[in-house]
């Protein structure tokens, strides 16, 4: 009954030390906010009516080409699997983000949890009961809609780190220890006064719990994971001089101390005008950061235990509008998955080179989540009770055969 979700797994010492497949699994989601163009990233169709000026390059997987803006990832495609045929019915940013973060379409009667919140909810019960020190779900970068706990509760909302690599704001008390202790002692007395006669108000005790959780975080020995000052210049350079690159590096450090789920946002891909220059710039940040992250995870023997997912809320139209832009396109977009026990080198589906809305081998987003959950050892069909008394499956998708075998 004490504090929740704000804790480091009690096996932290072991977890931090253990390596290989034995280590508890973590998920790093590289969130491409605004809807990246599949044609300028993982699914180019150069030369035809729809391809625009984007060129394709060969990769380490025979017969697979990706956009020329991703040369570092092209050398590493044998270490990832690629889905080029995700389909959704949500073509609005907020609704699409909700759908792709939760695997459920927006529903006014219930708030679904993001996949990043489901993992600690399902896997870290013990740690949560022990109540310690670090958030289990962290959102890095200034995303507009960070992952939410939904019906699991606000306590499972992602902990936001808007400026990666510059630590976390508001973690230091501004007076010396004696005065701070005095302030906190007074707070205990006041909390007691307020509770008298109000024990029955359902959420009224949560205030003290969050204060307690905040104090543990302030005292956490793992706070250094949020900072990158001690990283060698060479490492910083490999991730690239961008907030997204620094965010990926922080994500790797957080996973190393046992954080279950991290989301790093890169945006804004919403290229209704000037699609190609926008993608040049953003893909130029994605390529080194993602490649460096995969390399680092492998070097540190964290590849088997850390799944990396690169995805956005939808793709962009095959046709190019008069402003040289591409508009929203939920019927055929891409995602990359790597590590965490996923097979590598698999390629599923592709969009129509002529611009049709029927990709081959279409994959509903919820099937991707059912696959990820299964790889974390969670049965996606397990039902959780929502506050309105309606049981809901964690995911209503089916694991993707090509990624499960």
């Amino acid at each position, binding site marked *: 009954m*004490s*504090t929740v979700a*704000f804790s480091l797994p009690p096996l932290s010492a072991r977890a931090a030390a253990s390596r290989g497949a034995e280590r508890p699994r973590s998920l790093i989601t590289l969130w491409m906010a605004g809807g990246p163009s599949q044609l300028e990233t993982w699914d180019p169709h150069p030369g035809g009516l729809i391809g625009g000026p984007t060129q394709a390059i060969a990769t380490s997987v025979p017969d697979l080409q990706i956009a020329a803006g991703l040369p570092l990832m092209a050398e590493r495609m044998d270490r990832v699997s690629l889905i080029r045929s995700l389909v959704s*019915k949500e073509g609005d940013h907020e609704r699409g983000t909700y759908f792709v973060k939760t695997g459920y379409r927006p*529903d*006014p*009667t219930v708030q679904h949890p993001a996949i990043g919140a489901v993992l600690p909810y399902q896997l870290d019960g013990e740690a949560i009961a022990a*109540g310690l020190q670090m958030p289990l779900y962290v959102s890095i970068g200034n995303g507009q809609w960070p992952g939410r706990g939904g019906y699991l*509760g*606000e*306590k499972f*909302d992602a*902990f*936001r780190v*808007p400026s990666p690599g510059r630590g976390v*704001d*508001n*973690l*230091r*008390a*501004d007076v010396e*220890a*004696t*005065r701070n*202790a*005095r*302030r*906190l*002692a*007074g*707070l*205990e*007395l*006041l*909390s*007691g*006064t*307020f*509770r*008298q*006669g*109000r*024990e*029955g*108000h*359902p*959420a*009224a*005790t*949560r*205030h*003290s719990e*969050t*204060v*307690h*959780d*905040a*104090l543990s*975080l*302030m005292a956490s020995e793992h706070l250094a994971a949020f900072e990158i000052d001690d990283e060698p210049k060479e490492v910083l350079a490999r991730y690239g001089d961008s907030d997204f690159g620094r965010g990926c590096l922080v994500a790797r450090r957080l996973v190393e101390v046992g954080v279950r789920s991290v989301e790093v946002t890169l945006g804004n891909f919403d290229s209704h005008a000037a699609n190609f220059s926008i993608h040049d710039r953003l893909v130029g940040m994605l390529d080194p950061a993602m490649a460096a992250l995969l390399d680092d995870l492998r070097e540190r023997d964290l590849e088997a235990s850390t799944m990396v997912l690169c995805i956005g809320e939808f793709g962009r139209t095959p046709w190019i509008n008069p402003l040289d832009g591409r508009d929203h396109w939920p019927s055929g977009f891409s995602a990359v998955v790597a590590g965490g026990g996923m097979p590598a080198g698999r390629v599923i589906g592709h969009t129509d080179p002529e611009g049709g809305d029927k990709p081959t081998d279409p994959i509903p987003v919820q099937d991707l989540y059912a696959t990820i959950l299964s790889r974390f050892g969670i049965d996606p069909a397990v039902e959780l009770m929502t506050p309105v008394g309606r049981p809901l499956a964690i995911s209503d998708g089916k694991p993707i055969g090509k990624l499960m075998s």
Partner: protein
Amino acid sequence: MARSTTLTLLLITLGVGWAVSRSVLPARQASVAATSRGQRPLDGGREADSPAAVETSALQAAVDRLDAAFAETWMNEGLEPATEADDLTILRRLSLALHATIPSLEEIRQFEAEPREGRLDRWAQAMLADRRFAESFAERMTRAFVGTQGEPFLVFRRDRFKAWWADQLAANRPYDEVVREVIASQGLWTGRPATNFVTHSVTDGTPSPEKLAGRTVRAVLGQRIDCAECHDHPFADWKQSDFRGLAAHFGQVRLSPFGVEDDPARVFLADIGPRGQKRGVQAEVPFGEAWLPDTGTSRERLAAWSTDPRNRRFARATVNRMWALLFGRPLSAGAPWYADVDDLPDPTEPTSDEARSPLDVLADEFVASGYDLHHLLRVIAASRPFQLSSAVASAAVEEEAGGSASVDGTSSAHGGSAEADFQPLLDHWAVFPVERLRVDQVVGSMLQASSVRTIDLNSALVTRFLRFVRENDFLREYGDPGDDELLARSGTVPQALVRMNGKLVRETIEPNPFNATSRVGLASLDDEQLVEHCFLLCLSRRPTPAERAYFSTAWDEAASASAPDDSDAGSEPKPRLSAAQRAQDLCWTLINAPEFSWNH
């Protein structure tokens, strides 16, 4: 770095100057017309037969009817309601509800100087006449109708829409008229601000009938039909065809260089298939066909239908929303519905001899008053549930009487039984609910706690400047729930961190010449007085005897005993903190106490 800071400051200054020229000047004029703080109607309503006396007795009759409905429920359920809260607690609730801030020390002094009889209603009236009410409620109504988005650029001016709402609320224009203007008005979004309701839905140059229909039903009728956009509603009785028929009322609206227009020749084409198939749909209503007038544009007809006195959903939804703004929790959240503000169940046909629910009593009163929002808010504020304490005496209280520790989170002794006994009281409004304050209320309260004088729209420019900058930083870190601000929430760790260590609180309590902490430090003759001042400043109440004793004498010893491994331990005792520093520490503690961030 320094250059960009200077530039930012310059831009902010310009922004404030612009905001001031736009809003403070009209606000000044408005405040001349309104009852200003210096001219409270101390003797208003005392003379028999005066219009004010007649009005007051009409108010009392309405309050009596509402209270009777609650009293009957409590009797039927066998509930003993909580005792009455003290006047300062109710003043704090009123101030938070109507002005989104705690009362200032100055206001508390004025309030306490008035005769007790009728004092709370006089203050409710004066607060409704204060521009702070109009500004705060305008934001709430703007969220209900267009959300928090700032897009689409060029055709949508949220600021104009909100300023227009503030004017309607300040003038207390009949609410049904206001809603009809929002739904049906034509013209430019700059010159006719109500048209921004239509333009907020624009994508690719065209207003979205579906979005407008969904918003209208939520904000005006208190129900969600958005899910009927794709399938029949799982709970309420809405069909997909109902949704399309309603959306078709917005099917003739279009944008032109002259603004929002209705083109009678346009036919609403609804999406009916996954491949983009469309079908022409007639404007229809799902019930109450008789309320739909024969003439007018299709939007005017929908507006008339929505606000027809026979359409009980309208008044019920409005009183439910206003109740939520006063209590932090909608009337529908209690028994028998347990529903969100946007999920109000369908009204049932009233039977003559059956007792009416408080919701229907209040809705009837709202219709009878000619949709008078100020009257409605005064009735709710004067009702028995609003006056009740949020605490009840219980067995658990005895156990807790020692004021045991809670920061460590381990001693919360609330067993299942305390909650079980308590729930029926909450469900039937026999105890005042404890609810989290909205972020704007928290910010407003922190800023108010930094000043002994009232911070309002007439405050000096420098204060407004600081408020402008601080609020925005704080909002970003604290998080803003957007459209869903009336849903129940608990607190989060980042919120606790920003309260404990954030810049806003630090600047609020810093003992500098502008802040209350240094003024309280100077003005207090002794420790006890200092403690009392700080409590009034931050919590709008006096300390209990135990708190008074603790904070004026025992605090230092308690602190040094619990100080964690202080490196100075064993060396000479430190000099006592100055009065301003003591006020600073106490205000930090009070601002971080649960009582500060909860409505209670």
